[in-house]
């Protein structure tokens, strides 16, 4: 009778023993196990990513010649447009440098651009993050800003051997100093409470009272560059709503983020050349 009772309780006893053993294990061992788990798991994700790339490649190979010719033409047009943009940007950069020199503005921290493929996207009430296919092997550093054509994606929170985790700006764990375009006063941007499949949102705090944002008169929010992590002028989103804060001295607001954040396939990590 008693033996049968013990048999029934054996799984719980085993679990209890495992938990007890885990608790008394040294922290170094636990950390090693955790890192090893991620590193062992990483090749699977990377392999999946490569397989997906291969799948896309073969899918493209299935297109007809006419479609490929048409796509080639489109690409040529796009390249021409980009060439023009590059020339314009060069001229504008020169102008900015001239004005910077004129106003004796400090030079900003320089970054090294490191493009990376996205291997996994986590969008849920718990996680707002991406895993990219570059890590320590490309000297990615924790805290580095991550951007895409639409502006800021987020910042690196974990770096592994061949992958890195990007906390998206839609995450509540990301906060940075922003400014309204055309204004110089820094305000606090933080990711909002985002649920699965919902358009990503953020919130701003400490917004001056003389800035009015409405859905039909939204304000572009860009990085301030004052915080020392993100370079200035990168788009974060648009403030679509603002209201008086609890202290009556500042406003709080809602920021609409780029919906493409949830479908990114390629991002660029800005690795600071001279980190603190």
């Amino acid at each position, binding site marked *: 009778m008693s033996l049968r009772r013990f048999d029934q309780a054996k799984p719980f006893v085993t679990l209890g023993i495992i938990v007890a053993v885990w608790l008394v294990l040294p922290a170094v061992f636990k950390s090693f196990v955790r890192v090893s788990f991620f590193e062992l798991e990483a090749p699977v994700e990377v392999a999946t990513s490569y397989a997906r790339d291969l799948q896309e490649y073969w899918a493209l190979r299935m297109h007809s010649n006419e479609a490929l010719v048409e796509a080639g033409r489109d690409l040529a047009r796009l390249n021409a447009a980009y060439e023009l943009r590059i020339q314009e940007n060069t001229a504008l950069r020169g102008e900015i440098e001239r004005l910077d020199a004129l106003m004796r503005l400090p030079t900003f921290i320089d970054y090294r651009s490191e493009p990376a493929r996205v291997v996994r996207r986590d969008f849920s009430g718990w996680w707002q993050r991406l895993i990219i296919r570059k890590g320590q092997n490309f000297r990615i550093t924790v805290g580095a800003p991550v951007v895409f054509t639409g502006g800021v994606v987020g910042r690196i929170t974990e770096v592994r051997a061949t992958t890195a985790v990007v906390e998206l700006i839609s995450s509540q764990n990301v906060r940075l100093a922003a400014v309204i375009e055309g204004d110089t006063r820094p305000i*606090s941007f933080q990711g909002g409470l985002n649920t699965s499949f919902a358009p990503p949102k953020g919130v701003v705090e400490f917004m001056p009272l003389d800035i009015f944002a409405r859905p039909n008169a939204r304000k572009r929010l860009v990085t301030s560059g004052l915080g020392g992590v993100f370079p200035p002028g990168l788009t974060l989103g648009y403030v679509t709503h603002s209201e008086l804060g609890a202290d009556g001295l500042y406003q709080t607001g809602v920021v609409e983020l780029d919906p493409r954040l949830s479908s990114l396939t390629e991002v660029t990590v800005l690795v600071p050349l001279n980190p603190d």
Partner: protein
Amino acid sequence: MSFQDSQRTARSGSMVEAHTTFQPRVFFFHFVIAVLLLVLIAGFAYQQLTKTSLYHEAERVQSQRRILVPGPRGNIYDREGRTLVGNRGRLSVILNLDELRAEFRREYLQIRKNYRDARDADKPDMPSSAQMWRIARAAVVQRYLDQVNAIIGREVRVDRAHLHRSFSQERLLPYTLIEDLAPQEYAQLIERLPVRSPLQVFSTNTREYPYGSAAAHTIGYVRIDSDPETDEATDDGLTTFKMKGSIGVNGLEKQFDHILQGEPGTSVFRVDPDGYRINPPLEKRLPRQGNKIVTSLDIDLQLAAEKCMEVEIQNPGAAVAIDVRTGEVLVLASKPDYNLNDFVPRISASTVADLNARRAWSNLALNGVFPPGSTFKLITAIAGLRAGVLTPESVYTTDNVYRVGKHPFRDHRGCVSGDIDFYLAVENSVNTYFIHYGLLLGPERIAAEARRFHLHEPTGIELPSEVTRMIVPDPAWKKKTKGESWFDGDTANLSFGQGYVEVTPLQMACFMASLARGETHTRPTLIHEENRPPQRSAPIGLSAENYRALIDGMELVVTGQHGSARGPGNVRGLRVAGKTGTAQREVQGGKIELAWFVGFAPVEQPEIAFAVLILGDTPDESYSGGRYAAPVARAILTKWLEKKQRGPATPPVQFNLRR
């Protein structure tokens, strides 16, 4: 059954308990226990059922704490809606002490271990447990502060005494590590501090004065209030932690503190037995900003007056301008003054020392009394005209000296002599003329006239500490206060505003406003109201001809060939009626002169009345009203005329004092 078996059975049978149905002694004990149990149950029932609310309240008071956040103060505007006093956010980095319990504990254990190890190594001095807790808390807080220092490049150290006080008395309140962050520091902190950290950037509000020292004495300043007032709703026995607020100390900030004071916000938290907060709050009410005040001041005129006093004149003094029709004060300036922003968040000892040295605390427009000098001749003139002793045609021949007994009273240097009529006497401010008619009038009638214009009492303006010691002397006053008889010399002095008579510049401005309306009383106000009805008081009691003669004489002061303010008091395109005055006051090292200029404009339809007083700062140096005070009045009137000709720049504001 064998014998042995029967014996065993008999023995064992004897061991079986014998039960009886009723035993009185046992029943008694049952009864007693039942009664005791009933008493106990009844007691419990009584305590739990009839005193439920009492225990519930006791439990609530023991386990809940209230945090009170003062609301921002209301803004103060000038009459055109420009912000004279606002609020600005003040960003600080704070540490939530109540989230550090585990860290404090770990640090304490570590410190205790270290001390025990050290004691083993022959070091017997071991601090008490309380001391080790303090050391542990300071060490933990310093670690967090070092994080902040590293980010913003400062080297701030923990103030242990302050930390201990905050922890003991205000554990639930955020502990401020660094106040008043610069925008860049704030940006660096929000970008680099972990989002979920006991370290947070926190905003408080503080007063902001866009015009710095403009109207500083009138606006007043605030000080930090460690115990802000709460409404009755919070007086329910709960332990309340109050964040620092501010309270008006002087000027409008003090006078209208009850209006400006914001409505505090409250949060009620449940706390654990150690007093640490358990989130989220049980109740939360957001703070509300206090009500606004729209003053009657016109900041353009105020700045014009102050700029002239500070840059051109560079002497202590006061300037007041009043809307003749309504009594609304347009300018109330006093120099030297202070920059109100120096009081935010608290004034430094060096600034206090500087203000003491410059004697900048006092509002000379209404906190000090001064002999009005020759401006008082207008009172003598009105009294004489009303009594018939003096007429516009009255002529007195002077050789610029009037002897009363053995004492010679002289006219000012360069004064006209010979036959002096009323107009010339006012225009050139001839002392001997007014002494002559003053003596004919007698002191009682002159004093009565001054009292009719309310120069003997405070104006009642909405500012604290308006002086009450103004003096309009007469024989009865002298007898009562000094125990001395009144002499003709006293009358002579009184007739041209010297001797015992003392008034404030604000009173003189009110007197001018009354004179401009042909009345006797003006109640000044610093609150602006659209469509405020014109003031009405007793008429001046002069015939139209006499009144006209008086005003003409005053206009000649500015425009006449012998006018004492000719030039400095003249404003192109504006007819000004004025009167200069120069009085003397005994100070250490001699006598200083006080320069006055009072009047109103435009003469044809008065709208603005003014009084300017400039104090000489060098004993025995001449400071005439025309030279020193009239330029300030001209600055005010020039700006006033410019604005009048330009028309209203913005539509008048219509604020509600009560939101």
